């Protein structure tokens, strides 16, 4: 049973997602890194579902639904920001900075 290797792979993928969020300034690539982190968590659920039964896989189902909803709303927000600022660079989006 591939429990340990799958958990290790999900650890690497999650860390890469965090690195992407911290390194990039492009809002869309930031979003893709968040999707990468969600995928890493899904892999953890599936790996542990081998032991704990189908509930883990059903959690993956719900995570995917939330991720799809989040992508739709988030990309709509990015579109609205782009219309306002003509940029998706996070350095130019500082409306809330005091």
């Amino acid at each position, binding site marked *: 049973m591939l429990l340990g290797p*799958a958990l290790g792979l999900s650890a690497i993928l999650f860390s890469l997602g965090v690195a992407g969020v911290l390194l990039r300034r492009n809002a869309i690539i930031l979003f893709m890194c968040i999707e990468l982190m969600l*995928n890493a968590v*899904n892999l953890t659920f599936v790996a542990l579902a081998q032991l704990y039964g189908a509930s883990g896989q*059903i959690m*993956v189902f719900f995570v995917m639904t939330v991720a*799809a909803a989040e992508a739709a709303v988030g990309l709509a927000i990015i579109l609205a920001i782009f219309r306002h600022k003509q940029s998706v660079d996070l350095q130019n989006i500082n409306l809330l900075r005091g």
Partner: protein
Amino acid sequence: MTQTVFYVFAAFAVVSAALCILQRNAVSAALWLVSTMFSLAAIYVLLDAQFIAAIQVLVYAGAVMVLFLFVIMLLNLGQASSDMRGASSVAATVVIVGLLAIELFALWRYTPRRLASEISQAPAFADPATVFAAGQLAQQDAAARGVVGGLAAPLFQIYLVPFEITSILLLAAIVGAVVLAKRNA
């Protein structure tokens, strides 16, 4: 055999994810993310989650990434200049992510046997088959009713209320996306 296939796809997933966060061009980053998702789908098959693998390809690699590519091309971000943060941010990132990765990567050493002995209350050795009876039952269920049937029964019985709440979430997301994307909202 399964081990080898797993490690091939795992290496492919890690390399594609690294290229995804390092690509300057947003379109190539999105395509590398698609490749990560495809290798994860292959890994789900190896982990006995065939239905999840199918919806990973359909929903993630299909629907979500098409949405991303559509927005990237709509905003014409194909040839953006480099958007990496400065050297101090890179150093901080390496430290933070390194610590996080070491911490999480300790999970690498878990086997079902070790997890069972840590979870069970008995001081001595525990048999994974007795501690994780649900996993065994789910496997028999999948063998008897098929992969989708084994997943559909709990989804529409125990998890029926969360499932219905999900539909409300999706409705709210649709309305929110339409309102946000309207030009003169």
